[in-house]
């Protein structure tokens, strides 16, 4: 239903996304996950037809977004990160307008609007001016707007951002309720949201795909992760080699900034294993000076990204570390 091949988007000298390739099957719900600035919104805007990619091919429902932009857009419903609607219109007249813009036939217009109103629980406020609605309701108007015209593909950019927990649950139920006949791509930076809603997850980082997996596999990886920070007065390469041979250690990444010639390592360890004593012993046996050794608690997202570094190139790993610092700050 969605096919993205080698898609890159540059704005001037800034590369927002770089060489993305993925497929989304019919009826699938896929989550785009990643920190702010990872390229989620850019990817979704390309799929929704806001702007074309700089290079590569993106197809939605079989239509190339560059060669047949109007047909591609006609099969997409889009919910932007910044919820937007004409504040001076009533909910019903706004959805009617959206229907007309999406080429809904005149005879089908009223039925379409009613269906969208009902699907999003907007029936009671159909006659209200959008500007007078609460944030939760406006969010639903945005989703109703995306549903209007019965598009085969829904692109939802952070559909639950800024809502209270009860509203978040409602929106998730709504999205899950769509599942049978719609292909959905939604973005979030909240991992639990992906777990509860999506069939598959695409992890974006710095404009690249770093992993594509099911939420279950993702969970399993997280289950066995823990992290220790070690500052040691030792040659970086030798220390890394020694650390990685320790049982229970998944990976050891040297941070870019050394303190007074000492190396700072971020060590990923298997969950439920405290390897601090083994690390301390290994360091002293090698004759190095141990300066600091502590476990660090992480959010799920951070652990996942840290795990991802394991599989990716070294430079990306370092870049990831900077981002983790940014996230935890």
């Amino acid at each position, binding site marked *: 239903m969605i096919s993205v091949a080698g898609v890159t988007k540059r704005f001037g000298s800034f590369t927002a996304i770089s060489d993305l390739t993925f497929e989304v099957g019919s009826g699938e719900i896929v989550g785009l996950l990643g920190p702010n600035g990872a390229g989620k919104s850019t990817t979704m*805007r390309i799929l929704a037809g806001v702007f074309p990619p700089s290079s590569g091919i993106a197809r939605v429902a079989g239509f190339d977004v560059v060669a047949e932009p109007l047909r591609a857009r*006609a099969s997409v419903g889009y919910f932007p990160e910044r919820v937007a*609607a004409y504040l001076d219109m009533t909910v019903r007249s706004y959805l009617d*307008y959206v229907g007309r*813009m999406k080429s809904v036939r005149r005879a089908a217009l009223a039925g379409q609007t009613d269906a969208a109103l009902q699907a999003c629980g907007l029936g009671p406020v159909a006659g209200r001016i959008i500007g007078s609605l609460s944030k939760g309701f406006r969010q639903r108007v945005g989703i109703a707007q995306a549903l209007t015209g019965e598009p085969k593909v829904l692109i939802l950019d952070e559909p639950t951002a800024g809502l209270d927990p009860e509203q978040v649950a409602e929106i998730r139920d709504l999205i899950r309720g769509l599942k049978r006949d719609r292909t959905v791509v939604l973005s979030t930076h909240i991992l639990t949201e992906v777990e509860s809603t999506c069939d598959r997850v695409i992890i974006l980082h710095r404009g690249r795909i770093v992993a594509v997996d099911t939420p279950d596999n993702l969970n399993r990886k997280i289950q066995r992760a823990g992290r220790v920070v070690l500052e040691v007065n030792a040659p970086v390469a030798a220390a890394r080699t020694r650390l990685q041979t320790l049982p229970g250690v998944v990976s050891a990444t040297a941070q870019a900034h050394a303190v007074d010639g000492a190396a700072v390592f971020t060590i990923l360890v298997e969950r439920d294993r405290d390897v601090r004593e083994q690390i301390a012993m290994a360091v002293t046996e090698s004759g190095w000076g141990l300066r600091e050794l502590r476990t660090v608690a992480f959010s799920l997202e951070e652990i996942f990204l840290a795990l991802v570094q394991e599989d990716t190139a070294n430079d990306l790993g370092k870049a990831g570390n900077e981002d983790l610092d940014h996230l935890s700050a």
Partner: protein
Amino acid sequence: MKTWTICRRELQATFGSVVAYILLAVFLLLSGYFFYSDLVFILLMADFTPIAGLWQWVFLDLRLVTLLILPLVTMRLFAEEKKLGTMELLWTYPVRDGEIVAGKFLAAVAFFLFMLLPTSIPIGILYWYQPFHLEPLLVAYLGLVLLGVAFIACGLFVSSTTENQVVSAMVTYGVLVFFWFLTWNEEAANQAALRVLLGLSLFDRFFNFTRGVIDTSDVVFFTLFISFFLFLTWQSLASRKWRGVP
């Protein structure tokens, strides 16, 4: 079809807001006052045939009121959508950029024509008392419509470059007044430069129409001016492709 949908929503938004009625009221008040004072001036002070000279005075004044009002009509066309974020949604609907530009442009033109309608009332009353030749009047109206539509095209473009409505109106005033003042400093310009400047001055072009003269080159100039700014607007929308969406 989509052009019509956009145009209709635009007109609904315009007439659903109190701003439209204030603009209409101010326009009518000023244009009515100018018509009255010009008529009195012609009748009491001037010693030439009243009607032939009247249109020049009236329409040169209407020009000023139009200049005052139209940037306030066009300022919200794109700026408001950008501010609200609805512009991004428009780009995901199966609609061409050209249809978006055309829809908004036509809505503003329709509002302008609607605004001009009541100015015919005092003229009609005058005609009832003192019939006159209609041709020079119609030519003057044609000139005013061309001038106003040129203002709208310029305002539409400026509005597409900002999400701040005040900035949109002020910059439009700046551009239009610049096109007006181009020929004011005749002493400073040499003859060759002055000819070019005169050719570009919106208001000098308009002057011929108020005298009842249709010069093809004037009509062509206004058409080119309008097309140029509509093209710029279209390009301005397309610039998201390399600049992104804020």
